[in-house]
């Protein structure tokens, strides 16, 4: 509890427990958890050990984007072997702290039905029952890891070091740094040859077939068809895509003594703007581009020809970000849609391209305290156990991701791990040569009667249906009216209509609807009734 302190919304609280002041017993952070009366999300960060000690001297927790106000903290202690604990308890309120580095799931990968993930420096296997096994530690630079595997070996590139996980013996071994001419950047596998690129060079290494321990037999080569260093590497269609920051080229397995050679004609004057932006989808490759003339176009490979899939609006957004070379992508397929998810850490924005419709949308995590969207809490993906699993960029959590599902009258996956998902649609302008028009009605054709059971409650404790809020702009989207709520029907009220009447006049009107209640919102159409003026 901060005595007589009103905490600021959106700030960060950092909490330390230490045994130094008391000399009491102290145990590791898994024994403790923290909560507060504001419902802030507390994360354990790390323990500090004295050399040779098996119990932590101190541990730390934090909560970001706090709700503010007077806050009472509660420490929970799990019973264990010890008979007593003693500690000092420090708390800091911090402003403007955007993140803790090293707190993220840096990669997730599935091979032969087994799923592996790296969070910080932990290399772990995720099991089908929602538990995990830690198999060892890897170097951590906070950046994504790349993984590639055969049925026998998993090769992992993390923070400049390559590791082999033996899938038979379940042992993790670092490949000695002297094996390569520099720091390892990315890894891949093509035709049973493992590949590794070296940071800030044009060099790539090829292993012996199915043997990530042998990098001598085939050795290394340099990409000579472009003058720059390799930024990104990806294997697609039995070919290897190498991109610098200005150009790209495809290699293939030629069967020669050194297995890989350039595909004639498969070089393009578009490079990669971000090392981890290329991802495979629909049998091709999508990446965030950069070349000698500029950056910030999203490309899709059509054969060996790049095809622009971003549009001016997306490019205007992307090119306005302070940094895009740290962008990270993943792809997945759900309900027949293949999505390319592009996460920009610096502005904390997630853009998603649907390859089926060719349309873009945004995904975001709504932070109520600051009234803004942040990026969706995912930066890597795998599919296993009949589940889409995504790794968080802000914690060591792996989430199951699924469209909202109604079972009986209960919704699941209609929120983000307990946090409301704010959904928003801002419609196109309605204008006719900028003449005044008079609006009498707006109807949103939404599937109603999908409220949960027991029902949601209003401020007075009375049952209500899920709420849709409409606001409108009469000046082309620059300023907005206050929101007007409409009830979208408690469970079974399928005939409920959602409409707003007497909406005034405007020369250029924009409607916006938003919803946050935890149901599967399905909007079929929208209609407006208006009469045209003459001036």
């Amino acid at each position, binding site marked *: 509890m901060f005595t007589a302190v009103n905490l600021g919304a959106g700030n960060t609280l950092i909490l330390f427990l230490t045994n130094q002041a008391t000399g009491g017993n102290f145990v590791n952070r898994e024994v403790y958890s923290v909560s507060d009366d504001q419902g802030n999300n507390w994360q354990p960060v790390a323990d500090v050990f004295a050399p040779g000690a098996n119990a932590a001297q101190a541990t730390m927790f934090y909560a970001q984007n706090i709700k503010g106000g007077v806050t009472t903290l509660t420490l929970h202690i799990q019973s264990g072997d010890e008979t*007593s604990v003693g500690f000092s308890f420090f708390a800091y309120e911090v402003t403007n702290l955007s993140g803790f580095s090293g707190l993220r799931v840096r990669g997730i990968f599935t091979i032969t039905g087994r799923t592996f993930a790296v969070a910080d420096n932990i290399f772990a296997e995720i099991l089908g029952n929602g538990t995990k096994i830690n198999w060892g530690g890897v170097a951590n630079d906070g950046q994504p890891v790349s993984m590639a595997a055969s049925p026998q070996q998993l090769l992992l590139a993390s923070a400049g070091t390559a590791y082999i996980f033996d899938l038979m013996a379940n042992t993790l071994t670092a490949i000695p740094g002297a094996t390569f001419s520099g720091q390892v950047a990315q890894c891949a596998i093509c035709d049973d040859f493992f590949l590794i690129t070296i940071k800030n060079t044009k060099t790539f290494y090829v292993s012996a077939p199915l043997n990530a321990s042998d990098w001598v037999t085939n050795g290394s080569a340099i990409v000579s068809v472009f003058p720059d260093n390799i930024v990104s590497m990806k294997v697609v269609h039995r070919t290897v895509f190498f991109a610098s920051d200005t150009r790209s080229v495809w290699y293939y397995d030629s069967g020669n003594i050194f297995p890989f050679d350039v595909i004639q004609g498969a070089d393009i004057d578009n490079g990669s703007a971000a090392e981890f932006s290329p991802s495979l989808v629909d049998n091709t490759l999508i990446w965030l581009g950069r070349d000698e003339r500029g950056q910030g176009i999203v490309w899709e490979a059509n054969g060996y020809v790049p095809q622009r899939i971003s549009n001016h609006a997306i490019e205007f957004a992307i090119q306005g970000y302070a940094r895009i070379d740290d962008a990270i992508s993943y792809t997945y397929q759900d309900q027949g*849609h293949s999505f390319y998810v592009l996460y920009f850490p610096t502005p904390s924005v997630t853009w998603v391209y649907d390859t089926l419709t060719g349309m873009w949308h945004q995904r975001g995590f709504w932070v109520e305290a600051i009234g803004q969207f942040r990026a969706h809490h995912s930066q890597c993906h795998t599919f296993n156990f009949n589940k889409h699993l995504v790794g968080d960029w802000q914690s060591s959590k792996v989430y199951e991701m699924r469209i909202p599902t109604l079972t009986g009258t209960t919704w699941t996956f209609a929120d983000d791990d307990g946090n409301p998902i704010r959904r928003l649609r801002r419609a196109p302008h309605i204008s006719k040569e900028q003449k005044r028009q008079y609006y009498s009605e707006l109807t949103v054709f939404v599937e109603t009667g999908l409220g949960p059971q027991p029902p949601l409650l209003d401020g007075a404790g009375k049952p209500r249906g899920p709420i849709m809020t409409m606001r409108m702009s009469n000046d082309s989207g620059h300023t907005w009216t206050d929101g007007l709520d409409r009830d979208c029907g408690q469970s079974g009220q399928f005939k409920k209509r959602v409409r707003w009447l007497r909406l005034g006049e405007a020369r250029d009107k924009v409607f916006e609807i938003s919803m946050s209640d935890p149901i599967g919102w399905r909007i079929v159409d929208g209609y407006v009734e208006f009469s045209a003026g003459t001036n």
Partner: protein
Amino acid sequence: MSRFGLIGPSYAAQSLNADAQATINMYVEQNESGAANAPLSLLPTPGTKLYVDLQTGGELDGAVTATGTAAGVTITGTPSVTPELAVLLTSIVTGQTVNAQGGWTDPNGQTANVINYQLLGSGSASRSHANLYRRRPLRFDTGVFQKQRSGSGMDQARKRQRFRSRRPAER
């Protein structure tokens, strides 16, 4: 009434007067039957539920110890924080710098400022061997950690279940 394009993608042009469309946490699906109420629908993007937290469990601590440090913090000047905290930050806060005012420079280069600091107190508590899995909340209040009353709803339910299981089966 007229259809006005409510269903559609994000498209916010340089000029909002040209186009100000936004679609957040919804995506467009074409109704492929050809006989639907409308050609396109707007559907909800997925939600998430925790599957596993990779950082829980004792083995991580071993990993942290093995690397020698969980961090790479540099302390410059004389932090206005307590010596204990300086030691903690040295070992805990990864890649961040504590400056003379007790602030942090975070990985994105932003300066974070400590605006409130309180030593909330110290405390101790007895813990039971009886149940390795039950968590006992300690609530901080006026400088002392106080163990909350046991007998949560879950505990009561367990007791009732245990009691029922001892009763002979009804005939």
